[in-house]
């Protein structure tokens, strides 16, 4: 026991020393800082997305702080890990709300984590900005304390169905793991295809299997001209390899959040992924915010979640400036004043805050889309970006 207590003291001493090193930054702050947080999956199933998301939000905050902060106050961003698990996510959110006293939590990724964290947020009047796609999320009784930048499944899948038809595919087979949007994805794709005289077969698979041979066999028995691979990166890597091995000659399409450069690198054989189409919500062509995200993350193809959390940070900071108040309720009440309704088009919070301080009305156009929200907190419309893999690289086909 004595041995242990010495260890503990040493560790405490280390922590205390480290804390004192960090002190000057706190002392330099002008008045009470504005506290915001990201809650992204840094470990667990979403661990490949969360770290870059946290970095994107941190960069936005850093830029704003360099330009003098908001309302003359410094912005302090805390980043916690939701471990892609609702139980751990709730503990982290409780700490952010009660101990850090943040007025907004940004970037919750898994739908189950968002649904678990949302009640804590609306009960404590904390704004929650999420990238989760499940239709049920915006139907929660959130009193306006929730917005999401991810288009819901209805918008996404309907548009994807139209695109699939335009590729000339009539027989589509959807392969999808069990997620909160699985049922609606299958139903909506079916409806979209029917309109154009197409037909759908579908299969729900277990996303933790090491091989999908039998699943692929079942898909090929349907004799599809196109396979819609609707999983996440880890399972799609396995799935695409098995589809290739089975000698499938038709087209393949998937979501850009799973079929990305990381997936291409992991598969490592260019011919496996050659010609695969990807699909993602996107800003209008030539939107400058997307270029900014490319620059700050150093990625050629920043994933949609990173773009969205970049937008969250900008929107929240501008909403605080517009409300002249940093509370969660103020953010809720003024976020739509900076996101939509005309005015000067801005693509980042620094310019936006400047314009707001000068008394101008702003309309933010983000990296993930125009970022206009309806009363439920869903985005109203957005463009989609269609890409195709050509010799191991993603090539842009169109934005529409």
């Amino acid at each position, binding site marked *: 026991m004595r041995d242990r207590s010495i260890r503990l003291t040493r560790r405490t001493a280390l922590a205390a020393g480290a804390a004192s090193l960090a002190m000057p930054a706190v002392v330099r702050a002008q008045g009470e800082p504005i506290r915001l947080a990201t809650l992204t999956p840094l470990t667990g199933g979403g661990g490949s997305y969360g770290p870059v998301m946290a970095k994107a939000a941190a960069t936005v905050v850093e830029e704003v702080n360099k330009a003098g902060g908001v309302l003359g106050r410094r912005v302090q961003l805390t980043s*916690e890990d939701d471990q892609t698990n609702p139980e751990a996510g709730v503990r982290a959110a409780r700490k952010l709300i009660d101990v850090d006293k943040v007025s907004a939590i940004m970037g919750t990724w898994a739908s189950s984590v968002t649904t678990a964290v949302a009640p804590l947020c609306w009960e404590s009047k904390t704004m929650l900005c999420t990238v989760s796609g499940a239709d049920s999320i915006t139907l929660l009784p959130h009193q306006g304390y929730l917005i999401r930048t991810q288009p819901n499944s209805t918008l996404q899948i309907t548009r994807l169905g139209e695109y699939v038809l335009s590729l000339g595919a009539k027989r589509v087979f959807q392969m999808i793991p*069990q997620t909160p949007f699985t049922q609606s994805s299958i139903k909506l794709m079916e409806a979209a295809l029917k309109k154009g005289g197409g037909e759908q077969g579908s299969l*729900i698979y277990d996303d933790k299997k090491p091989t999908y041979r039998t699943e692929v066999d079942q898909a090929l028995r349907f004799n599809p001209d196109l396979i819609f691979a609707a999983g996440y990166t880890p399972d799609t890597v396995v799935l695409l390899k098995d589809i290739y091995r089975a000698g499938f000659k038709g087209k393949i399409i998937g979501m850009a959040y799973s079929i990305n450069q990381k997936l291409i690198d992991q598969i490592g054989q260019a011919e496996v992924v050659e010609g695969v189409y990807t699909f993602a919500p996107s800003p209008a062509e030539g939107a400058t915010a997307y270029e900014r995200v490319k620059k700050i993350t150093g990625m050629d193809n920043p994933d949609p979640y990173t773009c969205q959390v970049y937008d969250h940070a900008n929107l929240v900071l501008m909403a605080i400036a517009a409300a002249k108040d940093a509370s969660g309720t103020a953010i809720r009440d003024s976020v739509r004043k900076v996101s939509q309704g005309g005015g000067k088009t801005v693509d980042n919070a620094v310019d936006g805050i400047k314009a707001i301080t000068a008394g101008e009305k702003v309309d933010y156009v983000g990296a993930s889309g125009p970022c206009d929200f309806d009363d439920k907190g869903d985005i109203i419309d957005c463009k989609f970006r269609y890409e195709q893999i050509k010799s191991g690289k993603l090539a842009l086909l169109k934005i529409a």
Partner: protein
Amino acid sequence: MTGWANYLVFIVATGGFYALLALSLNLIWGGAGMVNLGLAGFFALGAYASALLTVNAGAPILAGIAGALVVGAIGGYVVTMSTTRLRGDYLAIVTLGFAETIRLVANNEIWLTRGSDGISGIPGPLKAELGGWFNAAYALGTLAIVALVWFALRRIDLSPYGRALRAVREDEQVAQVAGKRILRFKIEAFAISAAIAALAGALYGHFNSYVAPDIFQPLITIYIFLAVAAGGVGRVSGAVAGAYLVIFFLESTRFAAAAIPGLAPVQHAAIREMLIGLALIVVLRWRPQGILPERIPPAPRPQSQEAT
């Protein structure tokens, strides 16, 4: 109640659910020597039973919790009855499979469990009346239940029944030769243990107002094994102490890791995981019997020659 105080009572309540799970595991692993890797499954059974009874059937919360106990006990009975010939590692694998089955059923039987959307809006007792004091009151209630279960299990531990259970743990054949009906002991212990885990699940659901399949990943089972191993296998107080130690450790590493400047959030998260792994190694290396080791009264020796 807001600020630090609210956070702390929240952690006390969450620690209470962990403590109940640890008590459940301690009874079956420390008491009867059966390794139950399916703890998360029984936790899920209770959470879903109570959530479905209160949300779908409109039953009062107490009835939901009672239902969870019954469903948990039945689940435990079914698992032991279907694994009567299995011991040790084989039983562990089957129980792990049971937990995964429960999670997959919760994920895919959408008509009943609402699939991966989960069940939200589970009522909490007197939530509207208590307002900001809900967390504090719930934490107190949870502590009272933990104390009650602790007391009951301690009584079992000290009773002839508890001794017989330990005899089963040490050597089934010897216990059988001594005339103990080991199957009945195992079934009863497993059912009680499963019911306690289900109770933890029900309490969890009414506290957080949301249950979903993602919550019941094997991660929670690992945390509870860490708690019981650190606290002391076979000692009721050890399980409770271990559970609070784990939750305290999980939360304090948040602050300790964040105190290291110049690291990205993902590195903080990685340091937390490493610290948790390190803690397990440290405990197993220097204190394998746990902080509060099991106390077994020495058996009377046949010859009364005292060792000098």
